[in-house]
C-alpha cells in the first residue's frame, strides 16, 4: 500500500510519542467534552449492541443441549441451568467428538513460530533498510511497501501449486516438490511471506527513528552490524517488537483463508475447525457455542492482558489489509 506511507505516518507518530495526559479536572473537561447526555446514551446503546451477541454465545455455551436448541439464551436468566458438558464434548478426543483441544494446540503450533519468524526476519530487513548502505536501498523499500497492496488472494493459487508440485521450466526443476501442503512448514511459510511487508513497514518506521548518533556511537565503539543489531537495535526496539508481535499473533491466530488452503484437515487451526463444525454439524448448536468460545478465548485474553501494546501496534500499523 503506497498509501501507507503518508497515511499511517500520523498514527505511527502518535504511537511513539507519549500522549499528554489530559487532566480530568472539570475546568479542562468542560472546555472539551463533558459528553452530552444524548451522546452518552448513544455510546451506551452501541456498547450494549456490540456486547450482546458475544455474551449470548458465552451464556449458551454453558446451557444444556436441549435448552440451547429450544429456547433463546436470554431465557437462561429465568431458567438458569449450568453445565460443562458442551465444553467436555468439544474438547474430548473420543471418536465422533470434535477434539478442539488438538486444534487449539495446532493453532499455537502455527501461530507462535510464524510470529517469531515474521517479526525476526522483518527486524533484520528493517535494520538493513534503516542503517546499512547499499545501492538501491530506497527503491527496494518502496517495492516492499508496494507489496502491501497485493491482496492475499493474488498469491494463493501459485503458492499452492509451488507447494504441491514444485516449479519447473521444461524439465528443469527450479523448486523441488516438497509437498508442503498439509504441513506446518507450508502454513508458516505462507504466513511469513504474507505478513512480511506490513511487519517490515512498521519496524522500519520505528528502527529508522532511533537516534542516528546512537548507531554511530556504537560504530565508533567498535561494534559491527551484527553487534549493533543484537546489542543495541533489538533491545531498543522491544516496544515495537512487542506490539507488532501481539498484533501478528492475533492476525495469524484468527486467520482462516491461509489455513483452509495450506493446513489440511489434520493440521487445521481452531478457526478452520470451527468453520467446519458449523458447516458439517449445523444442528449441533450447543457444541458450536463451546467451540466458538474455545477459539476466541485466547485472543480475547491476550487483548485484555496486553491491550496497551496491542493498541499501540494497531496505531503503528493501522492493521494489515
Amino acid at each position, binding site marked *: 500500500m*503506497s*498509501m501507507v506511507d503518508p*497515511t499511517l505516518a500520523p*498514527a505511527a507518530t*502518535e504511537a511513539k510519542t507519549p*500522549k*499528554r495526559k*489530559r487532566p480530568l479536572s472539570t475546568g*479542562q473537561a468542560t472546555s472539551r*467534552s*463533558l459528553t*452530552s447526555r444524548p*451522546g452518552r446514551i448513544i455510546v451506551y446503546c*452501541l*456498547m450494549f449492541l*456490540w456486547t450482546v*451477541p*458475544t455474551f*449470548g454465545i458465552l451464556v449458551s455455551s454453558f446451557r444444556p443441549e436441549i435448552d*440451547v*436448541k429450544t429456547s433463546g439464551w*436470554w431465557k437462561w436468566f429465568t431458567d438458569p441451568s449450568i453445565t460443562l458438558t458442551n465444553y467436555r464434548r468439544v474438547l474430548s478426543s473420543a471418536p465422533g467428538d470434535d477434539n478442539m483441544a488438538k486444534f487449539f*494446540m*495446532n493453532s499455537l*503450533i502455527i501461530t507462535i*513460530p510464524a510470529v517469531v519468524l515474521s517479526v525476526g526476519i*522483518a527486524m533484520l*530487513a528493517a535494520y*538493513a533498510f534503516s542503517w546499512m548502505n547499499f545501492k538501491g536501498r530506497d527503491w527496494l523499500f518502496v517495492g516492499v511497501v508496494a507489496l502491501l*497492496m*497485493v*491482496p*492475499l*488472494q*493474488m498469491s494463493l*493459487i501459485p503458492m499452492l501449486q*509451488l507447494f504441491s508440485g514444485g516449479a519447473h521450466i521444461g524439465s528443469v526443476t527450479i*523448486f523441488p516438490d516438497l509437498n508442503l501442503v498439509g504441513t*506446518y*512448514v507450508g502454513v508458516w511459510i505462507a504466513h*511469513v*511471506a*504474507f505478513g512480511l511487508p506490513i511487519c517490515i513497514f512498521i519496524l522500519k518506521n520505528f528502527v529508522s527513528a532511533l537516534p542516528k548518533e546512537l548507531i554511530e556511537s556504537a560504530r565508533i565503539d567498535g561494534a559491527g552490524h*551484527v553487534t549493533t543489531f543484537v546489542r543495541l537495535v533489538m533491545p531498543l526496539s522491544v516496544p515495537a517488537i512487542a506490539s507488532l508481535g501481539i498484533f501478528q499473533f*492475533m492476525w495469524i491466530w484468527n486467520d*482462516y*483463508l491461509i489455513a*483452509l488452503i495450506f493446513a489440511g484437515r489434520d493440521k487445521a487451526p481452531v478457526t478452520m475447525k*470451527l*468453520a467446519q463444525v458449523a458447516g458439517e454439524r449445523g444442528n449441533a*448448536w450447543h457444541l*458450536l457455542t463451546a*467451540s*466458538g468460545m474455545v477459539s*476466541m478465548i485466547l*485472543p*480475547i485474553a491476550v487483548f*485484555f492482558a496486553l491491550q496497551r501494546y496491542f493498541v499501540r501496534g494497531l*496505531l503503528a500499523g*493501522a492493521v494489515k489489509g
Partner: protein
Amino acid sequence: MGDLISAIITVVVAIGGLLALLGGLYWLTSKLPKKWQEGARSWVFLLPTMVALIVGLLIPTIRTIYLSLLDDNGKSFVGLSNFKVIFTTRGTRLTVFNSIVWVALGTTVTVIIGLVVARFADGMRGEKSAKSAIFIPGAISLVGAGIIWKFVYDGPPFEVGMLNSITKSIPGLPASMGGNGDRIWLLERGFAGADPPGSAPGFNTFLLIVIFIWASAGFATVIFSAAIKGVPDELIEAARVDGATDRQAFYKVTLPYIRSTIVTVATIVTIGGLKAFDIVAATTGGRFGTSTIANEFYVTKFVQGRGGLGSALAVLIFVLVIPVVFMNRQAQKRAEEMMGA
C-alpha cells in the same frame, strides 16, 4: 504430543539453520574486498526477506495475472475472456455487485460508528470500558464472528436466533419483516415487500455487512480516539473562546484536523471489505445470493477447481484495491495541503 514435539524440532532446526546460514554468509563477507563488504552484508540481512517476498508474493502475483489469461486448466491462452465471464454471468456479476455494497456500506457505517464512539466516549466516565466493548469483536476471528451472529440470525427448527425471537414477538409486524411467524433471516433475500431480482444484492447481504461493521468498528474507534486526543487542546479552546459550541468545535476543528486519519481508516476498512471471505464462508458459504468476490474466488478455484476464472477473480480484487489506494493518496495530499495552509 508427537505432533508438538516434531513441530518444536522443526522450528528449532529451521531457525537454527537460518541463523547458521546467515551467520556463515556474513562471515564470508569479511573475505570480500572492503568496498563490497557493506553491500554484501546488507544483502545477508535482507536475504530471508527477499526470498520470502519473491517466492511468496512477487512471482505468485505475476503468475496469477498470467493464469487469469488462460483457460481453467491453464492450458490455452484465452485473453480477457475470464473477465468477460465474470461480468456476463449472472452469479459472478451479483458477486461483484455484492462486494461493492460491502465496501460502500460497510466502510461508511464503520467510519461513522467509529467517529461517534470516539467523540462521545472521549472524556466520558467509563471511556475505557466503552472502547473495549466496541473493540472486543475485533479481537475475535471473522469465522468466530460469523458463528456468533448465526445465533442472532438463525431460525427454525431451533430456537436460537435472537432476531427471529424479537421480530416474531412484535405484534402487528408484517411477515415480510419477520413478524407473525418464523423467519430464517440469512436465507431470505427480500425484506418488507421489496424483492430484489437475482442480479441485485439481497437483504441477507446487508445482514452480513452488519457482521463486518460489528467486527471493524472497534478498530476505527481506537484509531479515531487516538487521533481526537491528538488534537491540541489549545485549538479546541480557541474555538470555544471564539464562541463555538461543543458540536461546532467538533465539526469545524476536530474533524478537519483528523481528516487524514479518517481517510486512512476508510481505506483500510475498504480493503478489508473487498477481501471479505471469512464471514461469508462461515455463515452462508456464499449461497442465497450472498457471495462476494473473495468468496467466489475461493469457491471457483478451490471447490470447483477452475484456475483461470479463479485467478481472474483474484486479479479483480487487486484491480479494485489499486484505485482505492490512489484515491487515498490524493485525499491524503489534499489533507496535508490543508494542514500546511
